[in-house]
Each structure stands twice: as C-alpha cells, then as structure tokens.
C-alpha cells in the first residue's frame, strides 16, 4: 500500500473514532438548561462552583477560558486579579468580560 493511501486510511479511522465518541457524548448528555440556569462548567475551580453568577461570569469563563485549557483546581483569591489581567491580555477579553469572570472566580 502506498504511503499516501495508508495515511488517508489512518486519517479516516481517526475521524471515525472521533465521530463515534462525539455521537456517544451527544446521546449521553441531556439538553442543556437555559443560560440563566446554567451550572458552572465541571472544570471550574471549586470556589467558583459555589458562587452564583449575577452577570454570566460562568458563561464567559466557559466560553473563553476553556478554549485553550481547563482551569486549575483552585485559584487563590490573592492572585485572582493577576490571573484575570494575564488572561485579559492572552485571551483578548474585553474589560467587561474580564470583570465578570473575576467576580465569578472571586466574588
């Protein structure tokens, strides 16, 4: 078998595995609740899980931060502002979004 055919086959097998996994996931998960009732994402810090967002800080966190990485298990309140300032630059958050996430992380 020529290498390009073989690599194409490998690619297809990989795609098939991913599609199967995604289909299993879709079947396993119930439809999400409305945004106002959305629970904090499962990978948010423990402290954040306890807070109730008044301004969609959890949603903004899930939409922006999880694009690159999952959050650390906890964020010390002393550095929450520094983390957000760093992520505002890195993730190009607007000031409004950064403030909402900060309130969510460290209410």
């Amino acid at each position: 078998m020529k290498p390009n055919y073989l690599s194409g086959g490998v690619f297809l097998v990989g795609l098939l595995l991913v599609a199967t996994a995604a289909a299993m996931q879709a079947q396993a998960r119930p439809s999400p609740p409305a945004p106002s009732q959305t629970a904090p994402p499962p990978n948010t810090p423990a402290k954040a899980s306890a807070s109730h967002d008044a301004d969609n800080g959890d949603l903004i966190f899930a939409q922006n931060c999880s694009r690159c990485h999952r959050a650390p298990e906890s964020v010390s309140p002393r550095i929450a502002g520094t983390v957000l300032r760093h992520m505002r630059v890195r993730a190009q958050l607007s000031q409004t979004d950064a403030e909402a996430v900060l309130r969510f992380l460290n209410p």
Partner: protein
Amino acid sequence: MARLAKAAALALAVISLAKPAHAQDTPLISGGAGFFSNTPGGQTSYLPEIQPVLAAPIGKKFLIESRALLSEDFFPNPSVHGYDHAEFIALQYLQLDYLASRHLTVVAGSFLTPFNVFNERLSQIWVNPFQDGPLIESIADFSSGTSLGAQLRGSALSRRKYSLDYAAYFSARSSNQQFNAGRAAGGRLSLYLPEKRLEVGASYTRQLQGVHENFYGAHAWWEPKDTAFRLRSEYARGHHAQGYWVGVDYRSQAFGGLDSWVGRIEPIFRFQQTFRRDNAASDTLPATNTQRADFGLNYNLPHNTRILTSYSRVFSAAGNSNLWETGIVYRFLFPTWKGK
C-alpha cells in the same frame, strides 16, 4: 548558569517592583514541570523540562509577563556507546502590557508572535495535549516563535452572539541570544461565536528582511457546548511551502463526570500534512512532502498532573518512520508571597 542567575535576578526585580493595587493582584508564578521521553527510530531521548511563568501587575494598568524554559536533553551518542546531555535555558518572552482602554492593550518587549494560535495558546507544556507542536508551528517565525517590538491587541467587539479580536505587531531584527527575532510585521483577526463555540481566524505576516516573503495563516477551533470534545485546526502558507494540522481531543462526562476515572481518560488524535512548493527553503517545514498521524492517550490525574502518551507515524519521501512519546506534566500556580 550565569543566564539562569540573570533570569532569577530579573524575576526578583520585577516582583519587587510590583505593588498590588488590590489584594487580588499579588504577582504569581505559574507554569509546568515535566519529564518526557521520545523514541524516533528506536533511539530514546529523555527530556526533563520546566517552564515557569511570571505575571506581575504594576499599578492598575500594567502587567509584566515572562516565560522561561529550562531543560536538559539526554540523548544517545553512538560514539561513546552511551548517553550524552545538553542543557537549554532560554527566556521565551518578556513583555510589558499596558491596558490602554476597554478594547486595547499595548504590548512592548519580547512577545510570542501572534501568527495563527498554537504559538500563543498551546505551546505551553501543561496545555499542549501532545509533547511536540505541529510541523507548521514555526513556518513564519524565523524558528524562534518570538518577536521583539510592539503589539496592539484586544477585543474589538464583544457581543452575546459574537466577538471579534485582533492583534497587530511589528518586530525588529535582533540577534541577541535571549531575544532572537526577525524584522517582520503582521497580525491576526479572529471571530468567535459563543453559542456555536466556534472560532475562526486569519493571520498574516510579512518578513521585512532578506527576501521579503508573505505568510498566510488560518485557524478554526470548535468546542461543542456541554461536551469535553475539542477540534482544533490550523493552516499556514509560505512562499515555498504550506501545511495544515487537525487535532481533536475528547473526555467523556457520561460516566461520573470529568473527575471520574473514566472522565480523566483523554484520547487525542492529530493529522498533519506539509507540502513543499519548491526546493528553496526559507522556513522550517520538512524538505519533502510529509504526512503524519499522531494517536495519543492522556490521563488527567488529580492535582493538575497529566500523563501523556502518543504514537506517531510519519510518511515522507525521505522515509517513513515511527515516533513514540511519553511524558508526565505537572502544572503549578501560586502567589509569590502570602497576602493578608
């Protein structure tokens, strides 16, 4: 060691300069420490590595950020019938950020080049699901991935249904060992649709030294809502070569959530191809057309620790090969001092 001492002294100076405007703004040290092994063609190398990040706010508007890389490569040396080793210490970036307005941040210093998104978002060892980057990672970066100059970036628009962010930069030429960079200018524009969890963007860089060449890039990331499935892809085109990669990773939430033993398992897959348009090489892509498939299985341990394993098959006119990689990475994050 002298470079390490200089870097440590610089970090201490930055920390001492930083005066938190609020109790939440204590300078922090973050980063990752890892131990990796890779076996291309039956020859195994070992690579302990630490990548510390310093972030120190100054006042209400400034932030100093820096990332270093310290590693020791242990590789087989046939001439001595054993292993040799080489140390590598480098400052990957050192930048001053000025939060000028709600939508504009001015960056000065040595910064990661904003061409496509892998370099800024996934090149950290504690973020990248694979041990190494894609083949097109440094196509437009003079192989350093870093620029030296100024950058304007921020969120141009942020609405509930979409957001638009931008980055534009100019880099001067520098042959300094720690701040090696090429003279270039470029930028990136990204559109993000929060409801679809879809981001698409385009990048452009023009080299302004030697032969002035243009480089084009595009990226698409998708993370379906309420899943732990992610698809990431990038395309880059230079004057003499082009390539792309598509990567996916997935964690199941169906068996007790992400923190269950099943949910911690993370299968990953990446496919990439590069094409050489002619034999003139002004980039770091392979000299011949190359296709590569990476299969990985990571396990996310508690306390921000991750085990990475992968097998790669490389198809190339220069010869097909296998690559086995394993590693363990710990991600740390703590304040530089105790506050009240």
